[in-house]
């Protein structure tokens, strides 16, 4: 019986303790569904929010603009101008089901203001619709009032909408299309994934450590194996859980992309051309996709994927061992969350730094945060799509893995002492003494 085979047994146990549970399978399926639901939710909510068609009365004192507000699928408008503006409230109360009354003043051309009366909080939908209808019509009327023939066309023509095409040179001056928006989206998504995964799997390690300590199985465990073996087995076991879970999601994404035809092979221009020829996609859309795909192609996806994996592993080791050390200082299951505060702070800080770096991915903040090991796994993700020099990535990964090993060694010392101590208040002084 050597250390390696014991670590293997522990790893297998830790892996099965999480991945063998029904809840793991359920969560693995649910998390992507929830994510999709979160993205689709605002749209769905808007759909639900539409509700019934409301009746709105209009008092048009200008006599011209009332007709500009036409019925849409949310509101029906009725002209009640003859009633006038006195006694509107009584009228409102008498009319059952009347939602609001819009009063267009006679001098709207100059004041540009309209009153909407209601006993309800007036919906944003009504406000923006009325403002839009009247705004367009009043603008037209104002343009017409200059009596210059064709003025509306002149104004239209003079509208300048600039489209930016960013072209990126490589060392030799070869051009490729770059799309900052796309790069920042990819960067953000990766940064968020790293943040989420490190936190999620770190928390799993913490739970496992706290469980062993609080139900006192730990005394039996450390009589069967060394604490460091237990710690390594846990970190590796939970790591495998992560790998399996992420692999399942990748397969998910693969299947979904295949269904919707957004295959990664689509970056192959030939394929796009063929698809276009087949008449599946009209020319405009084809061009747009082509542009996007060119931008995607300009981003070194496989390089980013490799870095993502490396940074994830490094970040996971670093934070995972910290979570384990934190867990070993916990006496009661419900104290667990308190012990994670330092890690959570670092992680949230890393995510915020990542978000802040989107605007200037080559700035000082971005540079330093992508070197500091506590933030680099998240912040570097934001920078990666913008072609970070190789030496910077190499240096940052070296720092990350170096400090991950260092932190793991320190964490193991804390863990070794912490798991066997009960009822002691944990002070930094104690912990520093253990590390020595």
């Amino acid at each position, binding site marked *: *019986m050597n250390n390696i085979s*014991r670590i293997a*047994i*522990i790893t297998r*146990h830790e892996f099965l*303790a999480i991945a063998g*549970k029904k809840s793991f399978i359920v969560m693995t399926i649910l998390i992507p569904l929830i994510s999709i639901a979160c993205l689709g939710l605002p749209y769905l909510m808007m759909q639900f929010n539409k509700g019934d068609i409301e009746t709105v009365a209009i008092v048009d004192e200008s006599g011209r603009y009332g007709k500009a507000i036409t019925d849409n699928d949310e509101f029906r408008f009725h002209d009640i101008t003859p009633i006038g503006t006195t006694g509107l409230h009584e009228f409102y109360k008498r009319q059952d089901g009347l939602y609001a009354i819009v009063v267009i003043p006679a001098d709207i051309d100059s004041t540009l203001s309209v009153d909407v009366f209601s006993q309800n909080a007036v919906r944003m939908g009504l406000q923006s619709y009325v403002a839009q209808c009247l705004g367009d019509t009043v603008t037209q009327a104002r343009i017409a009032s200059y009596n210059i023939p064709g003025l509306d066309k002149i104004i239209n023509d003079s509208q300048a909408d600039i489209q930016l095409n960013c072209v990126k040179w490589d060392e030799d001056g070869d051009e490729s299309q770059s799309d900052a928006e796309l790069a920042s989206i990819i960067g953000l998504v990766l940064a968020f994934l790293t943040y989420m995964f490190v936190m999620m799997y770190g928390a799993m390690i913490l739970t496992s450590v706290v*469980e*062993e300590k609080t*139900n*006192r*199985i*730990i*005394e*039996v*465990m*450390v*009589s*069967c*194996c*060394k604490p460091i073996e237990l710690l390594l087995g846990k970190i590796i076991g939970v790591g495998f859980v992560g790998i399996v879970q992420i692999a399942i999601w990748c397969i998910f994404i693969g299947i979904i992309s295949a269904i919707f035809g957004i295959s990664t092979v689509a970056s192959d221009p030939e394929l796009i051309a063929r698809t276009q020829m087949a008449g599946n996609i009209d020319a405009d859309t084809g061009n747009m996709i082509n542009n996007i795909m060119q931008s995607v192609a300009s981003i070194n996806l496989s390089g980013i994927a490799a870095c993502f994996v490396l940074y994830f592993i490094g970040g996971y080791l670093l934070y995972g061992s910290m979570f384990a050390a934190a867990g070993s200082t916990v006496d009661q299951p419900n104290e667990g969350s308190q012990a994670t505060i330092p890690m959570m702070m670092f992680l949230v800080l890393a995510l915020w730094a990542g978000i802040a770096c989107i605007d200037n991915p080559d700035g000082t903040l971005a540079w330093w945060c992508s070197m500091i090991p506590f933030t680099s796994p998240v912040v570097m993700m934001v920078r990666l799509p913008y072609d970070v020099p190789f030496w910077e990535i190499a240096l940052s990964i070296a720092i990350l893995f170096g400090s991950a090993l260092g932190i793991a060694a320190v964490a193991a010392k804390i863990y070794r002492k912490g798991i*066997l101590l009960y009822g002691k208040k944990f002070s930094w002084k104690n912990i520093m*003494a253990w590390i020595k």
Partner: protein
Amino acid sequence: MNFIETRNVVKQYDGHLALDRVSIDVPQGCVFGLLGPNGAGKTSLIRILNMITRPDSGELLFDGHPLHEKDITNIGYLPEERGLYRKMKVADHIMYIARLRGMNSSDARRAMGKWLERFDLTQWADKKIEALSKGMAQKVQFISTVIHSPKLLIFDEPFSGFDPVNTELLKKEILHLHDEGSTIIFSTHNMGSVEEVCEEIALINHSRVVLNGRVAEIRRRFSKKLYQVGISDTMKIDPAEGLFSIEHVQPSPAGGITAEIRLATGASLHDAIAYINDRYTLTTFQELLPSMNEIFIETVSNNNLQSAQQ
């Protein structure tokens, strides 16, 4: 031959001396009681024997050689604070510990089958531990401790929390393991069980061994020269000057009296028996040895008194 020997083992925690030059000998195949009040250092010593912690100094011999990492496959340990993975199935739990103790899968499975059957738990093998009653969970802990047939078994307060039926069952199994040749270390406050099962003891107080040796020998050493005398033809017994005094007399249910006498210093037991025999109808004569409980309390309080005076 000694299976375990510790020589001058010292262990210090955060400025507190947990073990002060502790030397004990546990003979091969012995049931050894490790006694002492709470906080005396028993658990510290047990953790060192289990290689959970290392001594600051001192020597540890296991089966004749210095204690080594590979020896954990020959040790079974049931801690006082014992837990289980509540979400695991009974069989998985036992297998996990057995594998960590160095058994291969097929041996572990075979041994588990045997033990589950012996404890009437076979039909629970696939149940989660959280579904078990407390008594059944304790049996699972016991099986996990002994499944790899270790040469050395360490039980820390094994009977705490057990109902009388399970205590008997456990005692039987422990003695059975002893018969099969295992060396057993008991750590306990339960002096009744010490008298019943332990052959040798070491009593630790304030981090030091204050008393050790064979149980029978220790009880004799602590003899107060008290004897129980049964007399059938009288209701009264008088003390004999220079020979014995009377401690206590009570009527015997069989008729006559039962008296406790204390032999005078320098008097011979033979003379005392002859003296009584000449004057009364002697039915029983038996030495009253102090119980381990009395010895424990006496030793610990004397020792505490000494430490306080120092």
